[in-house]
């Protein structure tokens, strides 16, 4: 039965994820423009961009790059399906990491020196955020366990709780916010693939990707954004319809905060990102999870 839900969830996410993600990206560009005193593009600009990319001629450097990117897209959709069908949060984390790995391999397989720099930076980003993301899943499960006595990674469990998981996971949530900047590819942590040309080595991890392949990368990015904001919202869900509104409000506030950070901080070196993310993971994750164990 679980598998059936996941499959239905994946199909729904494959349709809804890109639509929502596209609108989010449009809002991002609009808000960014306003923060810089510009008018900015239309809300549907990301959609136009992807449609244009699909119209471009096909000139892949090899035949495997597109396959890797397509696989990354499939796993992103599956991760979204697992999460939004109320499935296992830990599995969702692993599947979305697998998608990130396929994306890295796609860049590496082109043998372009610039794409390789991007790919190794992307690897560092995965290394930086992964511990905190795992602590997030564990913190969630322990939060559920503290209320029910049963350890459960299931996302749907949150909807049956008397209180939101955030109450026992404040530090874990703060840590998640820190690595969210890396996962959403926002400055100061947009090391592998920046949306701003002026601070990029050619175009980082996507240097050799063009046309249809690049369109898929954009769609992956949209879906990931929706999924990660879903993780943020999950912490504010409990057995109440109003909690969904609260979760949406928190998600909106967090997304605005990320855009603000993106516009106000210059890119850091990878050493600072890796150290920062691991220190945050160590402090936030270990202290919070340690508190669960001790108390």
């Amino acid at each position: 039965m679980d598998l059936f839900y996941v499959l239905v969830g994946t199909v729904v996410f494959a349709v809804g994820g890109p639509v929502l993600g596209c609108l989010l990206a449009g809002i991002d560009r609009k808000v960014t423009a306003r923060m810089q005193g510009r008018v900015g593009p239309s809300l549907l600009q990301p959609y136009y961009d992807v449609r244009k990319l699909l119209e471009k001629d096909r000139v892949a450097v090899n035949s495997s790059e597109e396959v890797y990117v397509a696989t990354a897209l499939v796993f992103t959709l599956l991760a979204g399906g697992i999460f939004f069908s109320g499935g296992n949060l830990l599995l969702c984390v692993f599947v979305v990491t697998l998608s990130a790995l396929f994306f890295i391999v796609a860049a590496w397989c082109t043998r372009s020196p610039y794409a390789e720099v991007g790919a190794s930076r992307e690897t560092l980003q995965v290394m930086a955020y992964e511990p905190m993301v795992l602590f997030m899943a564990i913190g969630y499960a322990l939060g559920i366990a503290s209320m029910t006595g049963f350890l459960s990674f299931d996302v749907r469990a949150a909807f049956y709780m008397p209180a939101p998981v955030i109450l026992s996971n404040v530090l874990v949530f703060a840590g998640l916010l820190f690595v969210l900047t890396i996962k959403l590819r926002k400055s100061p942590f947009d090391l592998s693939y920046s949306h701003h040309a002026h601070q990029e080595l050619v175009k980082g991890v996507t240097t050799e990707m063009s046309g249809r392949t690049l369109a898929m990368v954009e769609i992956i990015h949209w879906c990931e954004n929706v999924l990660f904001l879903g993780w943020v919202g999950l912490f504010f869900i409990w057995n109440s319809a109003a909690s969904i509104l609260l979760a949406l409000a928190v998600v909106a506030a967090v997304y605005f905060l990320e855009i603000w950070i993106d516009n106000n901080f210059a890119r850091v070196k990878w050493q600072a990102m890796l150290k920062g993310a691991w220190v945050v993971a160590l402090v936030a994750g270990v202290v919070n999870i340690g508190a669960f164990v001790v108390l």
Partner: protein
Amino acid sequence: MAFASKSPWVIHYDGSSCNGCDIEVLAALCPGYDVERFGIINTGNPKHADIFLVTGSVNEQNKAVIREIYDQMVEPKVVVACGICACTGGIFHDCYNVLGGVDSVIPVDVYAPGCAVCPENIIDAVVQGVAVLDEKSKALKKKRKEAAL
């Protein structure tokens, strides 16, 4: 409808410009002129770009570079010569090392003269370039359909 005109991404290359035109190209991207209103983004990657903005004249040193960037760009693509040097060689046209305008190495679709070319002219040229882009995109679509038959 072709979407090429809705999101023209540009790449900018300084041939041997005195930087006058370069500053104007970047000014067009800044808040004052904000070409992102039209979906125009400055990319650093020829493989992502639709419009090639070249400033400055062509010489033996940069001939190969301009050719390489043009070749790496994916069809449909448009070239805009920004400033009089890029159009004809301008004041440097009879220098010993200057070959002439950009059209001496690659086909140019739109010429935007001026010394330096003002941002309004660049925007105007890009808008004209976008119309060419649309035509090329439609031609490519037609070619693809014919190939599929």
